[in-house]
Each structure stands twice: as structure tokens, then as C-alpha cells.
């Protein structure tokens, strides 16, 4: 009776040690992974304006930028504000109509930019969905306070995502892991009326 009790206690001890080791390993792996992810990423490529950038869901070509007093649909910007306008060509590279272009552009050297408004140049009206494989000339407008100082050259970062045919939750296709794909420097020109 004594022997079996001791051997049972030993077995229980071994089981506990092995379970503990497994748990410790999992914790160490997770900690290591999070430390690895905080390392500085690879440098973001600098791209010339006018060159198309592949951002996964969108093919973005930035052309020019300017300040305007009128939005591309002909409306005057409210008093006390100026419209920072970006001229670009957008093409939907996905398999269905999409209006998720807002997340593809990021202003780097402008403080607190508001949510931008997108306009379709062809219609001189708001942009809704972009159809796949149909590139369109688009103007993006940020309405900033007129007193806000703007840099001589605007630095715009294009954020791209990667396609995953089966995501981890629903096994449905989607675009994930947004990351900076390119940085473009655009000279900022001041003009009256609508942007160039």
C-alpha cells in the first residue's frame, strides 16, 4: 500500500511538472513573438508621384496636390477653412465593387487631419463605389482650418493590405494586415478655385 501511494504521488508530480513545462513554453513563445513584432520594420519605399503603387486592394497613383477654396463638386469651402486637395488615380483591384479606399491614404506631416472626402472628377460629384478593374480620376479633399500651417511638400503614405482567402474566424476571404507600402512627397501649390 505504501509503495503504490508513493509511486502514485511520483506520477502526479511528473504530470504536474510536464504540464507546467508546457504552459511555460507557451508563455515564453507568446512573449517572444510580441517582442519580435515591436522591432523596427523595413523602411517604407519612397515613390515618385505619378508612379502607380500596388496597395493590395487598390492601385494608387498620386499625381499632384494643392490648396483650393472650392470642393471638386463646385461647392465653396466654409469660411475659415481651406481644402487640401489631392489628385490621384484609383483602381479597384479586388473581385467586387468597393468603397474602402479611405484607409489607403495617410497624411504624414499634417496635424490632426479630418476624415477626407472623395470626389469623382468625371462626375464632379461625390465618389461612392469603385468598380473592379475600372481606374478613375479621383480628388481627395481634407477640410483644414485656414490658419493651419502646411509644409512645402506633402508626405502621403499609401497603406496596403494583403489578401487572405480564408480568414481565421469565418474562413471567408478578406484583406488584412494593413502596412505602409509607399511614401510619396508632393509639392504643395497654392491656387484659387478648384485644385489642379
Amino acid at each position, binding site marked *: 500500500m505504501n509503495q503504490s501511494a508513493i509511486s502514485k504521488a511520483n506520477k502526479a508530480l511528473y504530470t504536474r511538472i510536464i504540464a507546467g513545462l508546457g504552459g511555460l513554453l507557451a508563455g515564453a513563445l507568446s512573449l517572444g513573438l510580441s517582442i519580435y513584432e515591436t522591432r523596427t520594420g523595413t523602411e517604407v519605399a519612397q515613390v515618385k508621384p505619378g508612379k502607380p503603387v500596388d496597395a493590395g486592394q487598390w492601385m494608387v497613383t498620386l499625381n499632384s496636390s494643392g490648396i483650393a477654396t472650392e470642393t471638386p463638386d463646385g461647392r465653396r469651402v466654409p469660411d475659415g477653412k481651406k481644402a487640401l486637395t489631392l489628385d490621384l488615380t484609383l483602381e479597384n483591384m479586388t473581385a467586387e465593387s468597393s468603397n474602402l479606399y479611405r484607409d489607403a491614404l495617410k497624411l504624414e506631416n499634417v496635424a490632426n487631419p479630418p476624415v477626407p472626402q472623395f470626389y469623382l472628377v468625371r462626375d464632379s460629384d461625390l465618389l461612392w463605389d469603385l*468598380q473592379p*478593374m475600372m481606374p478613375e480620376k479621383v480628388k481627395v479633399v481634407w477640410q483644414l482650418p485656414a490658419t493651419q500651417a502646411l509644409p512645402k511638400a506633402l508626405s502621403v503614405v499609401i497603406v496596403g493590405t494583403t489578401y487572405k482567402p480564408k480568414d481565421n474566424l*469565418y474562413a471567408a476571404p478578406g484583406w488584412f494586415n494593413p502596412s505602409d507600402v509607399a511614401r510619396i512627397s508632393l509639392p504643395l501649390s497654392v491656387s484659387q478655385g478648384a485644385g489642379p
Partner: protein
Amino acid sequence: MIRLLLSLLFGGVTALLLAFLQSTTPSYAILTGPIETAGLQKDTVSSRTFSVKVAKVLRTKTIAFAPYGKSIERQTEGVWLIVSVELQSNYDTMTIQAAAIEGASGRLYRQSHRADGAPRLMPSKDLQPGLPTTGIFIFELPEGETSDMTLVLSRQPSPQLDSEIRVKLDGASVETRDRVEIGANGV
């Protein structure tokens, strides 16, 4: 020894069986996805909740309409597709909000919002059971996609456990016009 081998074998067989079950289970999107009914343009295609009969398909480069008196013209790099349909609801008052064209490449082109405000657009019409309603859907797509088109209709976009009707459009009967004026009485 035998017991160890047996338990390993049992574990292995169970793992194989579970892997087989996991790989053959339809994905969540299919299990909770649309209940599809397919048909041809010449027939009235019926699902449990509604039915559609495609009347006419027009292809054009420019559309023109006049919402609120102001006249608007819209042009495109690809083509505009105007599909005239007759819809009928079977049991409940409903609206068919989601319409898309699946092109030859398999890409999905949803209704174009550039044509918002055009008269007789189907998503703005209530379908009453027993009363057929006619209206149009307007799409914009590249010319190359028009060789093999399927009209996809449902109550909401990405229907979940709701009917979706897919009508294969007959390429030969698509009428091509240079410019279409969409008026209150049709195209």
C-alpha cells in the same frame, strides 16, 4: 506494449477521421450564406420569397436622366448596363436592395450609385405580394466583362439564409445604343 500501440493506433485513426470531417465541412460563409436559385433570362426565375423576369438588357456608353429637374449625363470608360426587370414578391411586402452583375471574369459589379436619382430604379420600390412591379437596375462594368453576365438579386447585400436569385443573361439579346435617356416611362 500492445496497449500502447493500440492506443496510438486508435489516436491516429481518430485524428484521420476528424481531419476528414473538418476538410469536408462547408465553410461558415456557405452554411450561413444565401439560398441560391439560378435560372435563364427567358424564364421567370422563382425563389421562395420572390421571383424575377428579366425583360430587356441595354448596353450604352452614356446615360442621361433628370432628377429634381436638373439634367445629368454620366459617361464611362467601360459600358453602362441597364436591366429592365419585372419582380414579384410571394409572401411579404419587401424591397430588393441588392443587385449585381457577375461578369465573365467572375468579378461582382454592384449597382452603380452614379445613377442615383434616375427614375424607376428598383431598390426604391416596395414590392407587394401578388402585384408584379417593373423597374430598372443600372450597372457600370468594363466592356470585356459583358461577354458572360449573370444578374444576382437579393433583398440585402450578402444575404444570410435569405434568397438570392441568379439569372444568366443572354448575350445575344443585349441591345446596344450610343446614348440612353432614362425617363419616367422607361428607356
